[in-house]
């Protein structure tokens, strides 16, 4: 691997993505700032999950390209891409009977081969991922026996064990209660603190403001606003995204934008 070049800088240039015949995203430009957390927000069906899938090469683009450290991801071999970019999709299904450690070991697959099944690096990466996600005490538990938040952390730990500079998470906190959401967001912040680049699709604008460095707001397959949360979140933007009127305040503790007095615009 050429080390100097791999910082996990991901960039979409005039990207077109489609679901079958239906164009979802057209000529989209986006750059994920290295070492930062980017949250992609927008109403249901705005194309944010499709965009994330496109960035991770789950969908081939109809036009344009996605560049990872300057290389078109379509031209990277599958396993090399998986060593440089990790993805946690929304619908994560694991086979029955795996323990937390078993699951995390699968994160090493792109680094392994038929005659390289378990190296010192694999061992260290799995232990480090267990520690990073605060799962050491649960390592031998079956996945089925975990709470929702713990299970989500185990999935994220699997992607951590991939040791990629770049991590893409699709709605990592949907279906989690407040405490469990917090577990996940704190983990995300820790990972960014270690120098990783993260991007996540989020439903909740408030958590996006609170935990992301950069906000990408989408509607109808286009980016309508992009930048630091306190700069881009305005009453007009909330109206444009969700057809909602609101009063915008600042969180007295964190200073991040806070929405209140929500009313539907008719």
């Amino acid at each position, binding site marked *: 691997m050429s080390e100097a070049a791999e910082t996990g800088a991901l960039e979409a240039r005039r990207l077109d993505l489609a679901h079958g015949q239906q164009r979802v995203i057209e000529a989209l430009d986006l750059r994920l700032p290295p070492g930062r957390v980017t949250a992609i927000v927008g109403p249901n069906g705005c194309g944010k999950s499709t965009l994330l899938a496109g960035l991770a090469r789950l969908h081939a683009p109809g036009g344009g390209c996605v560049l990872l450290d300057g290389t078109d991801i379509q031209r990277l071999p*599958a396993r090399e891409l998986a060593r440089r970019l990790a*993805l946690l999709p929304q619908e994560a*299904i694991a086979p*029955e009977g795996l323990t937390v450690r078993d699951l995390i*070991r699968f994160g090493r697959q792109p680094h392994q081969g038929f*005659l390289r*099944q378990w190296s010192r*690096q694999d061992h260290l990466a799995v232990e480090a991922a267990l520690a990073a996600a605060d799962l050491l005490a649960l390592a031998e538990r079956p996945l089925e026996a975990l709470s929702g938040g713990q299970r989500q952390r185990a999935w994220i730990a699997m992607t951590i064990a991939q*040791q990629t500079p770049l991590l893409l998470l699709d709605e990592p906190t949907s279906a989690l209660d407040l405490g469990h959401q917090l577990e996940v967001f704190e983990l995300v912040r820790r990972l960014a603190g270690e120098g990783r680049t993260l991007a996540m699709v989020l439903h909740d604008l408030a958590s996006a403001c609170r935990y992301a460095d950069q906000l990408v707001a989408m509607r109808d397959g286009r980016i309508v606003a992009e930048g630091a949360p306190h700069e881009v979140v305005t009453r007009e933007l909330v109206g444009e995204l969700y057809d909602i009127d609101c009063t915008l305040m600042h969180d007295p503790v964190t200073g991040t934008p806070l929405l209140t007095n929500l009313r539907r615009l008719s």
Partner: protein
Amino acid sequence: MSLFPVARDATAAKRAPASALPPPSGCWRLAWQWPGSGEASLLISRRSALANAGLLLALLVASGVYLALGSVHLAPRALVAALVGQGDALAQFMVIELRLPRLVAAWLTGAAFAVAGCLMQTLARNRLATPGIIGIDNGATAFAVASLVGLGVSLAPPAMALAGAATAAAITFGLTAGGGSRGYRFIVAGIGVGAVFGAITQLLLARVDMDTANAAYPWTVGTLNARPPGALLVLGVGLAVGVVMALQLSRALSLMRFSEAIAQGLGSRVARRRWQVLGVSVLLTGLAVAVAGPVGMVGLIGPEIARALSCRRGVPIIASMLAGALVMVLADLVGRVLLAPIELPVGIVTAVVGGPWLLWILLRPHRSLA
């Protein structure tokens, strides 16, 4: 490597010296150095290794019993004598000429059906999706019968059965259009395709005279009695190739048990791997049907036993192979001995055992079918 693990690497290296890299629990790790190109390592699950050893032992014992029992029962000593070419000439003839080829046919067909079943179940992420249930067996049978009853096609049964298996698989996949190799839609389409091919087989047999129909009868139930040696040889070669390919695919197979986006995110070329897995499954099914007819239940029971015994992390190819052979040997043994001198075709024995098994899978409290 990348930027972050470096610091941890250094501290952890202090704790554990290089020689004492702990393998994951429940595994043996074999490692060696290639001159000039770093370390190679293999990881072997203790549980799977034990399961394979146990299944092999059981298979050997069952095979011994299979050779000893029949119209004339042989004592262990007489059996060994006959096998090494000594003692009673009749016993020698019985063991070497009659029972041994049939035993080999049971091994090979059982192994092939079970590996094919294991592959297809993994591909569809559903335990019901064995070639027998999704109609591939029936497709192979219909084509083989077509060649026997003289439809003017003169290809050998293995080629015909293979063509039938491929046709049935193509129709099933075609009906569920590409992405549909998952879930019940695929299985339901397969059951329909199987029913059509089953009807075609019956139709072919109904329009020929009694003698030809009788000759083709074994094809409709599945039997190991007096199978064509040519087809057996082809199956032997095909099984060797298929199992090696399946083993090479085993890492991709273990990722197929995850949702597709996960497998892709971990670097698996999912679409290409699916075609390869399907191809091996169809090959093994077609060649096995050419020898024994549709004994598809083995494809359900074999992998089920293998999974229960093996490590949960992987897809048990070798264990399926051994368990399938074991089931086939036992089923044919029961068929030969139970109502002797009347012989029950092995397909009927496995159906009698497999039917309730299938019901149990369908009716027991819900668990993930993967």
